[in-house]
């Protein structure tokens, strides 16, 4: 059975040590979490004729992208702008379900924020997060 995104999925930003996460408000969509395929051709004379064989090379973690309503003065959105300006990574968590019993994907990234504003629309920011290492999936805590 499918699961509705609204109420189930959260994009959160972390702070402090140990890290505590808080939801970024106004997020309307979220995509990402993949990795680029990197197959290295290792075909040789021993390979079955008519076929190829590969070994897996290092993979590039794909960026996460999101759109969010701009909410002026919000603490957690402001943290993104601060990190964007300083080019410093923040901890992020994509939370699936409840913080207890759910699943999470965690990673660090420097937020990259781009404004989108049409005169009769909402003030929006596009957020791009390129993980500095492969994200980690596990049980939410």
């Amino acid at each position, binding site marked *: 059975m499918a699961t509705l995104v*609204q109420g189930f*999925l*959260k994009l959160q930003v972390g702070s402090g040590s140990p890290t505590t996460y808080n*939801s*970024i408000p*106004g*997020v309307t969509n979220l995509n990402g979490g993949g990795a680029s395929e990197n197959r290295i051709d290792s075909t040789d004379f021993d390979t079955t004729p008519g076929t190829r064989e590969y070994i897996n090379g290092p993979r590039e973690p794909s960026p996460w992208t999101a759109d969010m*309503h701009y909410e002026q003065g919000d603490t957690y959105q402001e943290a993104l702008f601060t990190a964007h300006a300083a080019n410093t990574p923040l901890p992020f968590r994509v939370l699936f379900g409840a913080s207890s019993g759910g699943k999470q994907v965690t990673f660090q990234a420097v937020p990259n924020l781009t404004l989108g504003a049409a005169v009769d629309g*909402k003030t929006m920011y596009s957020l791009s997060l390129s993980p500095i290492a492969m994200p980690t999936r596990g049980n939410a805590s």
Partner: protein
Amino acid sequence: MNSTATIYNRLTGDTTLTALLATYGSGPAIFNERAPDAFEFKAGTKPCLIIAAPSSDLALETFTEVGRLIQQDIRGYAFDNGSSAALDGIMRRVRTLFHNQPDALSVTGGKAVISRVTGPVGSPTSEPSVIGRRVTLRLELQQT
């Protein structure tokens, strides 16, 4: 979140507008859905307003917030005395009260994020002696 109550409170709270409207009972002639049978459109009676039921009410949500996107008409009606100037003035005032004025709206259980108006435009009537206008509100209400 009751968009009709939000609209009603905004309309009745503007003395400039209510002074232009007929009175009914103890207040301005602002009705919900339809004018009561006892309200008569006749020469010398000022116009009335009717807050229509929403024509659209959709969920409008983010990952962390819930809200509604509501489209709702406010219609104005007046006795046809040969000029629509009074009614047009009222409807322009209604537009002024709502267009790009989300912070001025009070929403029980929420807040208005966006308030946009189209119109006023003509609104058909079933009575030849009555003229009508309408504005369409687009309200985005966020639950708090």
